[in-house]
């Protein structure tokens, strides 16, 4: 069923809820030249029920975590607890203006302060900014801090950032945005950063390395201590891409492994909803020497003695005497990276999630995420249809299978992905990382049950058989989704970006 657009549903004269009658005298309008004629406001006209049916019907055309298994690699599509939504809708939080005086917003500021502290503790860092609105935004924040750190030491020649070839595209894109140059590092035969290539590229022009650990192959960097030591010895800093923190939360603290600055994806590891593509949140934590460069303002504790702390150990959650929370901008800050304080509504969901887990619970997340991935991988390997990249290594939260099936030469990863839809599964991430041919990057997350993993493995195995026996079933897939395959080439060539 094709759902008409809001413009196609529009009917002149229809309207939604009305405002109360104007309760002040109407003022003269400015000169007519300022005004938009009423008929020149091309918005649709719908009744409230029209709007409700339209968007409910649209929602039914989505796969989502709440309807289906969604093993999108590197995206950590875990269950989004409903308690987060309930907490985020408390009027004391939603109905607060960001520019109200700090005296009026102490409750929300306390939440932010504690989240700064929790994230620093979880990752082994000294201080955290909550401002960045997404992972890529956090990367930009972190790389700008690295840049400024070197400049502040009077070292202007460090203009290169080393980026492994398995990295997300955001890493090199961020480096360019920060005005620095990307040097790509190859991976070695075990999926690690190639140490020889690293050494060959380390000199006094290197500002740092961006390291995703575990990387996008789902592998923990076997030489992480050596990698970070080498970069530090060369005077560089190590950026940690925290996209895959779900694998090691409670298992390792990146700050203890030699990472200097790292972003978190709260919409991945900390269960805040992905929202169909956002909002996320990308807080950034840093070691002590980078703390002066954090974007401001942060929340700090001001003690009665007038001292200000951004990471206060003697601060008592339940005891409010003797301090107040204030906004604080570090001395060498790179500046603000967005308006106001951060995506508070997202931050508070992550706070709720951390509070519900405690130290033990956080470790169980990583353990079960890694167990689920290894189990799914083991099931596929046991059956044998799908090659798995670096199959001999223990994977972390995800692994990369390949849509290269013996006896089905014409079938590609895309066909397998589309056929999975007919089995009512959202496909994994496809064709990424770029260094694995026909990649199917599978991340089950800890919230899925063994039953779901078995059903998914069964479907993949069944599809491999179909590929050999009835490849057209895959080539023409999906058959049961709301649409057949869509023509992406046409979309890019004959651009239609809006219609009203």
């Amino acid at each position, binding site marked *: 069923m094709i759902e008409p657009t809001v413009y196609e549903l529009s009917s002149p004269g229809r309207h939604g809820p009305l405002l109360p009658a104007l309760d002040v005298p109407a003022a003269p309008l400015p000169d007519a030249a300022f005004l938009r004629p009423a008929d020149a406001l091309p918005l649709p006209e719908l009744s409230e029920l029209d709007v409700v049916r339209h968007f409910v019907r649209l929602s039914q055309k989505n796969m*989502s975590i709440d309807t289906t298994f969604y093993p999108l690699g590197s995206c950590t599509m875990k269950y989004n607890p409903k308690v987060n939504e309930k907490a985020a809708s408390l009027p004391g939080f939603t109905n607060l203006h960001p520019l109200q005086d700090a005296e009026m917003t102490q409750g929300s500021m306390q939440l932010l302060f504690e989240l700064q502290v929790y994230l620093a503790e979880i990752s082994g860092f000294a201080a955290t900014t909550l401002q960045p609105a997404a992972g890529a935004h956090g990367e930009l924040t972190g790389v700008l801090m690295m*840049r400024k750190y070197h400049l502040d030491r009077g070292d202007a020649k460090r203009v290169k950032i080393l980026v492994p070839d398995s990295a997300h595209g955001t890493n090199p894109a961020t480096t360019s945005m920060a005005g620095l140059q990307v040097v790509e590092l190859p991976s070695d035969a075990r999926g690690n950063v190639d140490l020889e290539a690293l050494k060959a590229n380390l000199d006094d022009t290197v500002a740092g390395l961006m390291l995703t650990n575990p990387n996008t192959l789902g592998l923990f960097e076997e030489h992480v201590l050596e990698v970070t030591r080498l970069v530090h010895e060369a005077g560089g800093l190590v950026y940690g891409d925290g996209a895959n923190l779900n694998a090691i939360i409670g298992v390792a603290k990146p700050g203890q492994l030699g990472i200097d600055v790292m972003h978190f994806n709260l919409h991945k590891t900390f269960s805040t909803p992905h929202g169909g593509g956002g909002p996320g949140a990308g807080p950034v934590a840093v070691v002590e020497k980078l703390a002066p460069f954090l974007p401001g303002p942060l929340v700090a504790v001001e003690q009665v003695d007038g001292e200000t702390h951004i990471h206060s150990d003697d601060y008592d959650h339940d005891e409010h005497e003797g301090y107040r929370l204030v906004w604080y901008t570090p001395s060498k800050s790179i500046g603000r990276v967005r308006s106001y304080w951060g995506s508070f509504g997202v931050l508070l969901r992550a706070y709720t999630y951390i509070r519900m*887990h405690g130290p033990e619970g956080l470790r169980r997340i990583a353990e079960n995420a890694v167990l689920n991935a290894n189990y799914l991988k*083991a099931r596929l390997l046991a059956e044998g249809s799908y090659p798995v990249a670096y199959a001999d290594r223990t994977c972390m939260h995800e692994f990369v299978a390949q849509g290269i099936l013996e006896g089905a030469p014409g079938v590609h990863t895309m066909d397998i992905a589309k056929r999975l839809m007919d089995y009512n599964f959202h496909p994994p991430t496809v064709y990424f990382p770029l260094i694995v041919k026909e990649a199917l990057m599978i991340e089950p997350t*800890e919230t899925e049950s063994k039953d779901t993993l078995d059903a998914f493995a069964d479907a993949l195995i069944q599809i491999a058989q179909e590929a050999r026996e009835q490849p057209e079933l895959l080539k023409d897939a999906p058959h049961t989704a709301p649409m057949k395959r869509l023509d992406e080439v046409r*979309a890019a060539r004959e651009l239609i970006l809006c219609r009203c």
Partner: protein
Amino acid sequence: MPFIANTDADQAAMLAAVGVERIEDLFHDVPEAYRFPELNLPEALSELEVLRELASLANENEKLDELTSFLGAGAYRHFIPSVVDFLSGRSEFYTAYTPYQPEVSQGTLQAVFEYQSMIAALTGMDASNASHYDGATATAEAVIMALNTVKGKRHRVILSPTLHPQYREVVRTYAQGMGLEIVGDGGLGQETGPSKGLGQETGPSNLDGNDFHALLELCDAKTACVVVQNPDFLGTIHSPQEMQALADGVHAHGALLAVAVDPISLGLFTPPGHCGADIVMGEGQSLGIPLNFGGPYLGFFTMREKDVRKSAGRIAGETVDLDGRTGYVLTLSTREQHIKRSRATSNICSNQALMALRAAIYLATMGKQGLRSVAEQCYHKAQYAATKIGMLPGYEIVNRGPFFKEFVVRCPLPVADVKAHLLLEWGIIPGYDLTQDYPELGQCLLVCVTEMNTAEEIDALAEALAEAAELAVDAEAFVLEMELR
């Protein structure tokens, strides 16, 4: 543990399938000395306990529904129809991710396409992207797009001093590695004369010394773009003629004009897209998104068709499926980081899709009539408030031209004192204190009035301001008397 389905029996079966004895064995690649560190965090809470704790934190805030607020400055309290929460709360929307697989993501994709359509219609532009993080980052992306779009290497960026101060700060943060020269927003220049009556002015409408002529004078062959805001940060709305003249002047130098705009104002006023703007962007929070202490918000971003391929961020486009049925996909992805890597137009990946959905539902619900009436009520109520305040002894309305829903009030006493008195005695937040951002204005308050403010509230504001001024006079007299004695 909450939210984990595996039972002990499941775990045992899975470990056996994997071929290890204990879960800990899966982490042998993590250096042993750093494996399983202690986490100094509070112990886990149950759902009941965590909700109790959060309710108590929420109660420590003084939320706006217990106060009367005239605070705006880029984040606004507007009516949000009930359907917005209900529909955007459909978990098929909020628990999906970026629609990489269009066949099973048509809900999100069509909603984004409709959002793009309505935002482009509202701004009078050719095309909209799927969203940026907020108004400030959308402005920074506008500057970057301009740098990539203009002919030749250009490094000068001109920012209006009446562009939101935080947007200007974010542009500087983003640009710090780009070798740019950012000028134009050093200050407002001379102080203004008294108000010349409300709503009738059509001449140069900005505060003196920082009208568009001053910005144009800075514009040269090295300039990539000029960024202004309309209605500007101080509430003044600039005429279409003035905007068009600015656009013509900027284009004569081969530069682009980017305009930040309050989308609600476009229900009543001529959009920048009809006056020569090349990029129109801004904060979309007004469109059905709660204040939420500053986020998540919505950066909207619109452009001319010719520049679309230079733009940043996701864009949905219409196409057909194999059966020829109309459907939607993410398009022009060759601009983006996952394809172009270091040569991408931006590093943006996740955006604010759910907030764009809220805006789409809001615009569809309010519709043509509804948005106009919201804009009209904001306008009339703001004029009513300014007229009342302008008549109070000691107070002065600083805006010289028409304004939309915000205006600047010069106060006879320090703004901090006004705010303190009104909050304590009246439960009123009278507005935003401008003395930090615009010290050259003196003791000025930015007052915001929307359809949410009743006549009664506005009358109370005027009464409270009058009282604050009287008290200040009394206090001065008292101090003087004490000194004389």
